[in-house]
């Protein structure tokens, strides 16, 4: 049996729920059975849009996590405009691999490669940078590159990633997001590249594949550019770097 106190408590709880206020503990003695309230919550959770986070919250969560990681900037690169009080300049974004260093600790953490990667990108002896005159640089053995494990690399001025394509071939992609130049990482569970800065995703083919944050790129993004690559007879995959 339920009493009038419990009825009043449940009614107050559903009113708060429907007006999008935080739930509050029921008054003493009126707590009763939580299940009708839980049921009301499950129903309200089916409202259109109920499961899409508000943009202000996604920014707040980013700042919170950033602070927790020790950055302390409390600045969300997603909300600012380059050149207007932004901590990271557009130049730094475009520097790609330099981003993590430029951004300090938290930037370094947020800029890390996504899960599923065996290790940090393979550092390659950079040699002299000659813009007009590239060279073929050996990166990895062809068998090290699987559909589940793309191989990231930094060679010369290029941050890229070697992928096993759907047809089984090998391709080299730029690892620099075509939005603002952060370096993408591989999300093993979803098998996509994800940009740590604003969440853009790219398929193994390099094609833009949406974002975890609805509405972020209404007109999409260009694909990750392809780099020239070749597989040598001994299985070494080389990329043409500048």
């Amino acid at each position: 049996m339920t009493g009038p106190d419990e009825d009043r408590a449940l009614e107050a709880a559903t009113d708060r729920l429907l007006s999008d206020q935080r739930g509050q503990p029921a008054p003493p003695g009126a707590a009763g059975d939580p299940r009708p309230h839980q049921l009301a919550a499950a129903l309200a959770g089916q409202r259109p849009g109920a499961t899409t986070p508000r943009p202000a919250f996604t920014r707040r969560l980013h700042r919170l996590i950033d602070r927790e990681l020790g950055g302390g900037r409390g600045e969300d690169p997603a909300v600012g405009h380059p050149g207007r009080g932004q901590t990271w300049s557009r130049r730094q974004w475009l520097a790609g691999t330099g981003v993590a260093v430029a951004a300090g600790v938290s930037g370094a953490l947020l800029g890390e490669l996504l899960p599923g990667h065996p290790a940090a990108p393979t550092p390659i002896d950079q040699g002299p940078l000659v813009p007009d005159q590239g060279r073929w640089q050996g990166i990895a053995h062809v068998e090290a590159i699987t559909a589940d494990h793309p191989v990231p690399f930094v060679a010369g001025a290029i941050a890229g990633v070697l992928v096993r394509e759907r047809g089984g071939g090998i391709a080299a992609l730029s690892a620099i997001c075509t939005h603002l130049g952060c370096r993408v990482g591989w999300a093993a569970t979803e098998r996509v590249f994800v940009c740590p800065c604003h969440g853009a995703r790219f398929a193994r083919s390099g094609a833009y594949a949406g974002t975890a944050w609805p509405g972020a790129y209404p007109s999409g993004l260009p694909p990750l550019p392809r780099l020239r690559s070749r597989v040598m007879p001994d299985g070494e995959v080389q990329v043409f770097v500048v």
Partner: protein
Amino acid sequence: MEAAPPDGPAVARQRVLAAAYRVEAPAIYAFIARRVGSAADAEDLTAEAFLRALRGRQPLDPERVRGLLFTIARAVLAEHWSRLYSEAPAPLDAGPLELTDPGDGPPEPDGEPAAAQRVRTLLAALPENYRRVLELRFLEGRSVRDTAKGMGIRPGNVRVLQLRALRRAASLREVLP
């Protein structure tokens, strides 16, 4: 006494979570929002879940981030209901309305279809006026006045009907498949 290593398990864990959070946050938010119903609570609990994950000290395998986050989200939800109802039994989560555990599989783009299906099954099992009041008030978010107009009854009756419908539905939840 030696200084702590600069890159201990906690830092490695933070790296893993920092890299994963943008991918996982929408699914965690949706998982929680489906169970608390209001954005205000869903936001608080989502933030709580991520902070708790970040403050852990155990090493974390990147492949297991998603599972860990859902486990934490479930714990945070259970605590939420315990806070509201000091001796809350199992949260909705544990009953037949429990919606699929996303586990390690790829996330479903439309969320958990099972959740919507359960709600439809439950509503279909209710008497017509109970079903209607819940649809109008909760699924469509209409006011008491609107609901009364839509159902041709007095506003005071909407409130009574709504309470009865919620209690009936909560009891049905136990018996439905």
